[in-house]
């Protein structure tokens, strides 16, 4: 069973609010990822990290930002939420080398 957790699972928030989506893993994985996925659609990589103090933007441009101060923690922040940010956000991690990725349960974000 994968030990990667995302909170909250569901979030409904008003336009203009600042939000932080939490992602934590207890597997000691160096690599962590954030994906954005609309229902029934493809997975878009928006951020990834190779380790502490390493963050890179993914293939899909996103207004969100991330930080990696601790190995186990990879939060994603939206400074000012907009309805266009409504989506599911999935966090994943993987260990050394090109090994399998483990996904969290996801956060379903609705901005009203």
């Amino acid at each position: 069973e994968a030990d990667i957790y995302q909170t909250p699972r569901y979030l409904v928030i008003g336009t203009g609010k600042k939000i932080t989506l939490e992602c934590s893993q207890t597997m000691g994985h160096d690599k962590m990822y954030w994906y954005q996925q609309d229902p029934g659609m493809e997975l878009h990589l928006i951020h990834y990290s190779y380790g502490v103090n390493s963050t890179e933007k993914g293939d899909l441009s996103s207004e969100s930002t991330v930080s990696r101060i601790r190995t186990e923690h990879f939060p994603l922040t939206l400074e000012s939420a907009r309805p266009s940010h409504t989506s599911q956000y999935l966090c994943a991690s993987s260990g050394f080398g090109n090994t399998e990725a483990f996904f969290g349960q996801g956060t379903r974000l609705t901005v009203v």
Partner: protein
Amino acid sequence: GQQVMQIPQYQHVQEGEDFTTYCNSSTTLSNIQWYKQRPGGHPVFLIQLVKSGEVKKQKRLTFQFGEAKKNSSLHITATQTTDVGTYFCAPRDDKIIFGKGTRLHILP
């Protein structure tokens, strides 16, 4: 990261029929991973293929990696309702860029 194309985008099959999804790249891949995402769920790793011409089986699922390492396929024999979901392939790189997926629907 390397990009792949998956076909078909959607597939409806009668329960008990076979199903195949294909993953194609214009460049040679070092490896390929397959994931399954159930409706409302998150992607779950199925398998990784590394060697040219590799074939791996998991019960009713058969995974193949082409000789040129530019394509891969997932074949499900005698589909069951539990097979419903989206199947994604992804070349395993430092970044994991997924194909668009094949959505499998099973008709009872």
